[in-house]
């Protein structure tokens, strides 16, 4: 028995130390810094240790930014899953011997930096960009503003995080035994009913994973709102970035960042629990 326990602990150790070193330790550092004070040169001093930065963070001024962040992250999550599901389904069912190649193609954009790809979107969406040039060729007199809008931010995020939705969905759809769908059809379920009552519930773990994997990076993304967004699309992540990089007020930024992390984790856990009860049973 003792031997088993030791073996279990040994198996657990790598994952646990990864979590400790790369997640909990940085989180603890962020928390400690968030209790400190900015010195006059933008350094961090541990005087007046307390929750004063959290009081600053809980101002009603931040509400529009929080609303923006939630809006972009939710829209990105819904859109990503709506696009990713058919793609993953198609690769799994009809990919045949090209499945591996198709999956590589899904991941291909990762070979180029996210920032560079976002710049490419800027070129496409600008007033004199690709889209507006095409519209002008069809006789549009004035360019349509696409860049620096909500639409551009959601488009950029969906583009950026779509692979994170396709991969878990693919795994979960691919693991689904086609015989189960066939059985449903044999029992006179329509194609639609078989999908809704068999395929969808059985791939729900994949959908949940996809939702988490797109929602979390999109709520923390400041590159897309910064480059594709405009004056009215500030997100909480962008504020955190500004506090760290240009205002050099690390304690304040750390407090906001810590709140964002806590709220995200709490939201994710609550969502998972709800789905587990409601959907998986």
């Amino acid at each position: 028995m003792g031997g088993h326990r030791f073996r279990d602990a040994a198996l657990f150790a790598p994952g646990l130390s990864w979590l400790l070193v790369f997640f909990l330790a940085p989180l603890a550092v962020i928390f400690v810094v968030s209790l400190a004070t900015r010195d006059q040169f933008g350094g961090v001093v541990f005087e007046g240790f307390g929750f004063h930065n959290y009081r600053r963070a809980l101002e009603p001024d931040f509400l529009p930014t929080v609303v923006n962040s939630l809006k972009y992250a939710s829209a990105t999550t819904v859109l990503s899953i709506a696009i990713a599901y058919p793609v993953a389904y198609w690769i799994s069912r009809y990919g045949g011997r090209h499945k591996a190649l198709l999956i590589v193609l899904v991941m291909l954009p990762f070979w180029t930096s996210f920032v560079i790809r976002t710049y490419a979107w800027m070129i496409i969406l600008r007033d004199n960009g690709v889209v507006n040039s095409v519209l002008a060729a069809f006789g549009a007199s004035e360019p349509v503003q696409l860049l620096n809008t909500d639409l551009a931010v959601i488009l950029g995020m969906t583009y950026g995080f779509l692979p994170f939705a396709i991969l878990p969905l693919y795994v979960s759809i691919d693991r689904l035994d086609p015989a189960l769908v066939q059985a449903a059809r044999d029992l006179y379920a329509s194609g639609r009913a078989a999908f809704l009552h068999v395929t969808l519930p059985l791939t729900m773990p994949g959908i949940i994973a996809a939702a988490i994997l797109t929602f979390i990076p999109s709520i923390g993304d400041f590159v897309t709102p910064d480059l594709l967004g405009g004056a009215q699309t500030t997100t909480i992540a962008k504020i955190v970035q500004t506090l760290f990089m240009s205002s050099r007020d690390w304690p304040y930024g750390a407090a906001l960042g810590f709140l964002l992390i806590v709220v995200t984790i709490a939201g994710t856990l609550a969502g998972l629990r709800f789905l587990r009860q409601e959907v998986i049973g």
Partner: protein
Amino acid sequence: MSEIDRIHWPRRPISRRRMLRGMAGASAAAAFGPLLAACGGATTTPSPTSAPATPAGSAPGSSEPTPTATPEPTPVPAPEGELYVYNWADYIGEDTIARFQDQTGIRVTYDFFDSAETQNAKIATGNSGYDVSFPTSTYVKGFVERKLIQPLDLSLIPNVVNLGAEWQDPGYDPGNAHSMPYMWWTTGVAYDTAKIGETLTSWSALWDERWSGKLAMLDDMREAFAAALIRLGFSANSTSDDELDQALALLQEQKPLLRTYTTDDIGVLSSGDVWVAHAWGADVYQVQAERDTVVYYIPEEGGIRGSDTMVLLAGAQHPIAAHAFINFMLDAEVAAANTNYIGYMGPNAAARAFIDPAILDDPTVNPDRSAIEKLQEILDLGADEQKFSDRWTRLRAGG
């Protein structure tokens, strides 16, 4: 972190140099080519017209080592054989380092950075291994107080006499005791004359509702507040809560009219996304290469003068060579060659004789005297910076 660095390059590192490349062999190269060649040639044949400056190696107090023995001994200590320099990318004349090495025999290791954050992090270690770096003037005061840079020995920098009068005692570093000015630029307003049918002269253009959605402000806390404070008739370095609140109210009133806050003033102007933009003058020169209807002005209420400096870092292993380098950079011809290559004006009055007339005549990089007199420097306000950052955060976060 590298992604952050890449998107948040601040004002300068590209500028005209890239434009010259972009125009590959076209008119610009034709115009600048001979000039660069002429400047390069000056190393081998000292120009007789460089009299007011200190021609290489002949200055009495010059610390340049002379491999061929000097006739009379000088009290100046001999420089070390090596030097480590840390500068912005693309921010020096093409052959400046080579000329310095040839002239002094000092071997230079020249590294560069692309964001102030990267540079600050390195300088803040206190033992970066570099001797000389080029921080923006705003940082000098903090570096002095944190003892990250050393006082300069002005007796080793005789070329300091080449500085223009307005650079002998700058606000960020009285008496240039810890830094030497390197290059400067202005902040003002740029607009596209193809879209705006009138002549603009005031900061108020950036608040004009007729161009709602076609306006942009710099995504830079102190610059944005400076625009509002100057428009209100206050100092850009105000620490009065009342004045700052008024400035915040003005910026909040402006926010719904803005298309974006950005440091990519070049991108928004040259694409036509924005018609009137808060912009850095030196950037507008580059915009004009793509969209020649864009013009730049320093508002009648006044604008901002920014500058970069050369400093001797704490823990420098080669201080004498560092002084020799700073002195070399202040040589009239060397300073002019730097300006001609990167397209920024320097503080060197003696260098003007060697600067490309096209640069001297361009108000975007070399504004006239009356505009210069109305420029303010942005100073490091120490603990009061937080008054700005709290309001900036409220502005950016607010609906």
